[in-house]
């Protein structure tokens, strides 16, 4: 494309951008002094946006024209660099996460962010089993998170069970619901499945919201018991029966935070370990085969239903664990915490991490959750960035930033294959 054509193309893009933004950005509706709506104009922002679109479009066309001249078929240098880097990222992140509470300058606030990030890492890894490995798009994952949280809260409230008994129960209940919901819908095609899981997620939320006698409705459940250190409660009394007294430490409120931090760290690692182990077993291989081509799977004698159900149930179970943890950490839960947006955030983390990559999910959670937690005040931009990033990743690198495939059997040396090169059948 000649520069003149590129300029005309960019001008056209800017004109479209003006059409898009002129009304919705250029005129803002506000409640006026008289109570009715008034309009406020913001033309500077519109001009800025059109300028950005013009410059962006121009840069993209010129750059794409140059890149077309040296098209290659192998993995791009960018991918190779990422892979080399990727080898060091995981151990460094792990060490950082392990030592975080001991690092200087880490106070309660930083630990709280750490706990939040790790919760999303765990949720991301749990959903990764369903979406990344088995290729089932689950838009209602938050329902299992909610079931885990409510299981713990209700069991503790009505039966006085402790956290350590409820944690496995919450996971089992969530997995049970996963199977129950999964069973009728797993026959459906990929995109129908997505919509049905979305519907299930919303049904669960609406039921939690309206079943006031059991769940407290919109008021939620408060006073959920805090976890204990295997029976030793965290409190400031210094009794021999409390955590600090038993170990002869100075009672401090930070003990509980540190404990919670390591608790979610352990749960997340458990999720990761189970996933990594399963991936090397027939079940995990069946999941990945299913993701690539369902019809071929069926032809090769893989039982589609049980394969899908196990992925659904395992993903739901880890969601349930995370939910129980969430309930004990917050000590208060309400249906507000389990909206579709939450499902979308978790899905975005999995997608940005590169469907199927464990390290990628951790990095995505760290950047998207931790990053926005640090830059407070940008909160309303958070979801805009999330959604935009999802689209950009799908358009540019649909197999994820660090996606690679290692063949199970190879003649001679096994080599990792870049995700760019792996085609996919339709199932």
């Amino acid at each position: 494309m000649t520069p003149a054509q590129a300029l005309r193309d960019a001008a056209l893009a800017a004109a479209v951008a003006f059409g898009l933004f002129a009304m919705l950005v250029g005129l803002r509706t506000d409640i006026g002094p008289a109570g009715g709506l008034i309009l406020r104009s913001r033309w500077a922002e519109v001009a800025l946006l059109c300028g950005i679109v013009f410059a962006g479009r121009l840069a993209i066309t010129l750059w794409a024209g140059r890149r077309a001249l040296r098209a290659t078929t192998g993995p791009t240098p960018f991918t190779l660099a990422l892979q080399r880097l990727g080898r060091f990222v995981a151990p460094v992140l792990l060490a950082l996460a392990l030592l975080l509470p001991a690092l200087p300058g880490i106070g309660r606030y930083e630990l709280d962010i750490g706990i939040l990030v790790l919760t999303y890492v765990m949720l991301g890894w749990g959903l990764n089993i369903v979406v990344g490995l088995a290729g089932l798009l689950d838009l209602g994952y938050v329902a299992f998170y909610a079931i885990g949280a409510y299981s713990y809260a209700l069991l503790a409230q009505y039966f006085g069970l402790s956290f350590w008994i409820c944690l496995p129960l919450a996971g089992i209940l969530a997995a049970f619901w996963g199977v129950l919901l999964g069973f009728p819908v797993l026959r459906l095609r990929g995109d129908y499945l997505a919509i049905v899981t979305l519907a299930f997620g919303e049904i669960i939320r609406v039921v939690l919201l309206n079943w006031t006698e059991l769940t407290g409705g919109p008021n939620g459940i408060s006073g959920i018991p805090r976890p204990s250190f295997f029976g030793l409660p965290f409190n400031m009394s210094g009794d021999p029966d409390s955590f600090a007294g038993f170990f002869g430490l100075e009672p401090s409120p930070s003990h509980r935070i540190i404990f919670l931090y390591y608790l979610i760290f352990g749960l997340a690692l458990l999720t990761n370990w189970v996933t990594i182990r399963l991936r090397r077993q027939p079940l995990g291989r069946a999941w990945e085969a299913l993701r690539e081509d369902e019809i071929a799977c069926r032809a090769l004698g893989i039982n589609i239903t049980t394969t899908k159900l196990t992925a659904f149930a395992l993903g739901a179970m880890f969601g349930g664990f995370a939910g129980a943890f969430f309930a004990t950490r917050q000590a208060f839960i309400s249906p507000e915490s389990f909206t579709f947006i939450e499902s979308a955030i978790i899905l975005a983390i999995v997608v940005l991490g590169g469907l199927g990559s464990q390290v990628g999910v951790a990095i995505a959670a760290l950047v998207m959750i931790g990053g926005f937690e640090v830059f407070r005040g940008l909160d309303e931009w958070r979801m805009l960035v999330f959604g935009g990033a999802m689209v950009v990743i799908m358009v540019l690198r649909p197999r994820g930033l660090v996606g690679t495939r290692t063949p199970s059997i190879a003649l001679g040396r096994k080599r990792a294959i870049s995700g760019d090169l792996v085609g996919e059948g339709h199932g």
Partner: protein
Amino acid sequence: MAYAMQQLINGISLGMIYGLIAVGYTMVYGIIGMINFAHGDVFMIGAFIALITLLLLQMGGLMDGPAAILLVLLVSMVITALYGWSVERVAYRPLRGSFRLAPLISAIGISIVLQNYVQVSQGARPKPIENLLPGGIEVMRDGPFVVQFSYIQMLIIALTLGVLAAFTLLVTRTPLGRAMRACEQDRKMASLLGIDTDRTISLTFVIGAALAAVAGSMYLLRYGVIDFYIGFLAGVKAFTAAVLGGIGSLPGAVLGGLLIGLIETFWSAYFSVQYKDVAAFSILVLTLIFLPTGLLGRQEVEKV
């Protein structure tokens, strides 16, 4: 009896709105086989454009009845169609032939973007307007209970029928409609026969968005208050309508929309308002499990 009559009128006018959105879902699904998850949010954009145009007209003192409403509709249709076109161009077209979850994930991304774009640019608070066409005609009277058929409801029904008639003519009688149907049957063959498939797909999105804009404007006039989140529920319900009617079938979408509107209205009137969304969601789940081809859809054969 009178109460049921009133619900019937309300249900039909609500169902018309769902039907208009459902046509957009079903058209896109028919032609490229993807669920345009962002379609509900395109409907929301349509409602916001209508709101802003309305306020502009009010500021200019040009608010007199039908002409103003027509102008609002036209502006909303044009700008929303531009949104539909841009969305397809930016987020869906590069993904043709990509792996199978990619377009759907991209559509979810676009849905999140549109919602939050409107939230950031227009604020999160609901936007109320006053009723433009107050009053209506009295259909029947049962003691103190008066069954009213409001002017707005009449407008919704008349307009929807008009738009759908025009749309049917477009699909069945024009070259564009023929190209659309050809793409629906076999995209590769259509392109071999000289149909510009990319252009046809773009136009499908444009038309779908314009219909959603009509629905959005009607929603604004009927309920008088909108916010950035209305697209989510309306989208899911319209999708349910499309599935219930048989996805890919245009009369099915309208029929499904009417059924969903009626079921929702009667459910809220006789059972419970809190669980009315559960009714729509349950219908979706039940239809997909027991009647995946819908009422008027045809069996889909899976090809390798």
